[in-house]
C-alpha cells in the first residue's frame, strides 16, 4: 500500500494541482477571516448565513480559531473536488489500466489513493489553520479585538480541537468526492454533482424540511467542523456522517473491485 501512496504523491505534488489548490485554500481562508473581522461591527452580520459574531465572542479563547472553523465548509468543497478529480481522472485518461498492471490489488490502489489524499488534505487544512490564525492576529489589531485570551492554554486546546474537527470534516467531504469519482468515472460529472448537491440541494431541502439536515452528509460534516451546534450534537454528526460515507465507500469499493476495466 505504501508503494501506492508514494506513487500517488508524485501526482498530487504536481504544480497545476498543488499550487492551484493551495491558492484556493489561501483565498478562502483569507476571505472568511477578513469578512469576520472587518465586518465585526456590521449589523448585517460577519459570518455564515448572515449570523453575527461579536467582538466579545472573538475575544474569547475560542475566538482565535473561529475564522478557521468558518472556512471549513468551503475547504470541504475544495477537498471534494480534489478527491473526485484524482479518482475519476484514472478513467478518463485511461491510466487505471496502467495502475492495475503495476498493482493488481484493487483494494490496495483504493486504500493507497485515499491515504495519499488524506495527507494532501492534512497539508490543506494545516495551511488554512496557519493562515487563519496569523490573519486573525493581524486583523484583531486593526479592529481593536483583544487577543489577551488567545495565548492561554484554553485557546491552544480549542485551536487543536478545531484543527482536528476541520480535518475530519474536510476528509469527509473528500471521501464524498471519491465516492462520486468512482461512481461516475468522470471528473466533470463527479465534481459538478458533488458541488451542486452540497451547496444547493442540501441547503434548499433543509430550508423546506428542517429534519433532513440531520441526515445530509454535507450538513453534518459542517456541524463536525464547528464542534457541534445547539440542534445537532458533535457525536451524532460525526457518527451519522461517517456512517453514511463509509457505507457509500464500501459499496463503491465492491463495484471498483468487481467492475471490468475496459477503457
Amino acid at each position, binding site marked *: 500500500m505504501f*508503494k501506492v501512496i508514494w506513487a500517488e504523491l508524485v501526482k498530487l505534488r*504536481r504544480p497545476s494541482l498543488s499550487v492551484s489548490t493551495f491558492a484556493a485554500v489561501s483565498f478562502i481562508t483569507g476571505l472568511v477571516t477578513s469578512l469576520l473581522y472587518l465586518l465585526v461591527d456590521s449589523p448585517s452580520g460577519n459570518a455564515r448565513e448572515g449570523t453575527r459574531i461579536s467582538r466579545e465572542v472573538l475575544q474569547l479563547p475560542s475566538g482565535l480559531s473561529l475564522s478557521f472553523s468558518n472556512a471549513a465548509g468551503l475547504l470541504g468543497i475544495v477537498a471534494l473536488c480534489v478527491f473526485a478529480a484524482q479518482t475519476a481522472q484514472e478513467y478518463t485518461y485511461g491510466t487505471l*489500466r496502467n495502475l*492495475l*498492471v503495476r498493482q493488481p490489488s484493487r483494494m490496495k490502489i483504493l486504500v493507497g489513493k485515499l491515504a495519499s489524499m488524506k495527507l494532501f488534505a492534512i497539508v490543506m487544512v494545516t495551511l488554512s489553520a496557519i493562515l487563519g490564525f496569523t490573519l486573525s492576529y493581524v486583523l484583531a489589531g486593526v479592529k481593536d479585538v483583544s487577543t489577551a485570551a488567545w495565548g492561554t492554554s484554553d485557546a491552544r486546546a480549542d485551536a487543536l480541537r478545531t484543527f482536528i474537527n476541520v480535518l475530519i470534516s474536510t476528509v469527509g467531504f473528500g471521501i464524498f468526492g471519491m465516492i462520486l469519482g468512482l461512481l461516475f468515472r468522470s471528473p466533470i460529472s463527479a465534481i459538478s454533482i458533488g458541488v451542486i448537491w452540497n451547496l444547493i440541494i442540501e441547503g434548499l431541502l433543509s430550508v423546506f424540511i428542517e429534519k433532513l439536515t440531520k441526515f445530509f452528509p454535507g450538513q453534518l460534516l459542517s456541524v463536525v467542523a464547528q464542534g457541534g451546534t445547539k440542534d445537532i450534537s458533535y457525536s451524532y454528526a460525526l457518527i451519522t456522517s461517517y456512517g453514511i460515507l463509509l457505507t457509500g465507500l464500501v459499496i463503491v469499493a465492491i463495484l471498483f473491485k468487481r467492475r471490468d476495466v475496459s477503457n
Partner: protein
Amino acid sequence: MSNTAIDVRDLSKKYGDRLAVSHANFAVPMGSICGFVGPNGSGKTTTIRMLLGLISPTTGDGHVLGEDISAPEKYLPRVGAMIEGPAFYPALTGKQNLVVLAKLGGFDVDTVQGLLEKVGLGDRGDSKYKTYSLGMKQRLGIAAALLPKPKLLVLDEPTNGLDPAGIQEVRALLRQLADDGSTIFVSSHLLSELEMICDHLVMLREGKVIFTGKTSDLLAAQQPVVIAKPEHMKDLNKLAEIAKSLGHQSTILDDAVHVKGEKDFAAELNKAAFAAGITLASLAPIQASLEETFFEMTGEK
C-alpha cells in the same frame, strides 16, 4: 517450469449477448516473438485485458508465466504491457509518469532515465506528456512496459503513430529483448512488420482463434500465386479465363491477374497466353505474404 509464456484454454468473454472472445485456445512459447493479429473488433484487446487481469473471463482459464490468470498479482510483476495505446497523465512530464509507475510497481526509479534513452526520449523526459507527439507518446508507453525488466512483454499496436525510422527502432528493440530471453506478445496492423519479426502467430476472427502456430508453417501452407500482367488491359478477362481453363483459380486485382499456382505454372501460363495472342508485360511467381494470407483467412478487404 512451463515452457509456455501464455497458455489459454476455452477462454471466452461475453458482453450481453455478444461473444467478444469465443472459446480461444492458444499457447505462446517461452522466448518467442508472437504476433497477435485479427481485424478490428476480433477480440484481441479483450483477450489481452483478460491476460492482464483487467477483465474477468466469462468461461475458460489461462496461465501466464505458469500462473493462473485469476491471480494476476503472481505474474504481473514480471510482465510489461502497453494496452490499447499509451495512457498517461498529461500534466506530468514523461519522466514523472514513469516514476509514478516505477514507485507503484516497486521498481528502481533510477532506471527511468535509461529507459527514456532506450526509446529515444532521453532529451524530452522533462517535457510534459501533453506536449508529446503521437510517436513520442507511443515510445513512452513502450518505456513504461519495459520498467519491470519483463519476462513477458505484451504490446498492443506498439508502432501506431511511429515514423518508418521509429518502426525500425521498435523492431530492433523487440528483437534485442527476445534475444535477451523475454517473450514478446505483440498485436499490430502492420502485418509486414510482424512477418519480419514474429516466429509465432495467433490469428483471431470474430473472437475465434483461426490459426495458432509458427509463422513459417502458416505461410508455407499458403499456395503461391503467379501474377500475370498483360500488355493491353483489354486482355485481362481473357487471360483470367485461360488460367481457369488450365485448372487454376484466378482473380483480377488492379491491372493484373492473380493465379494460384506453383512457380512452374508461370511458364505454362505464358505459353497459353502467347498461343491466344496475348503478350504479357510481366509474369511473376510469388509466395503469399502474411498480409495476403491474413486477408484470405479473415475474409477482410
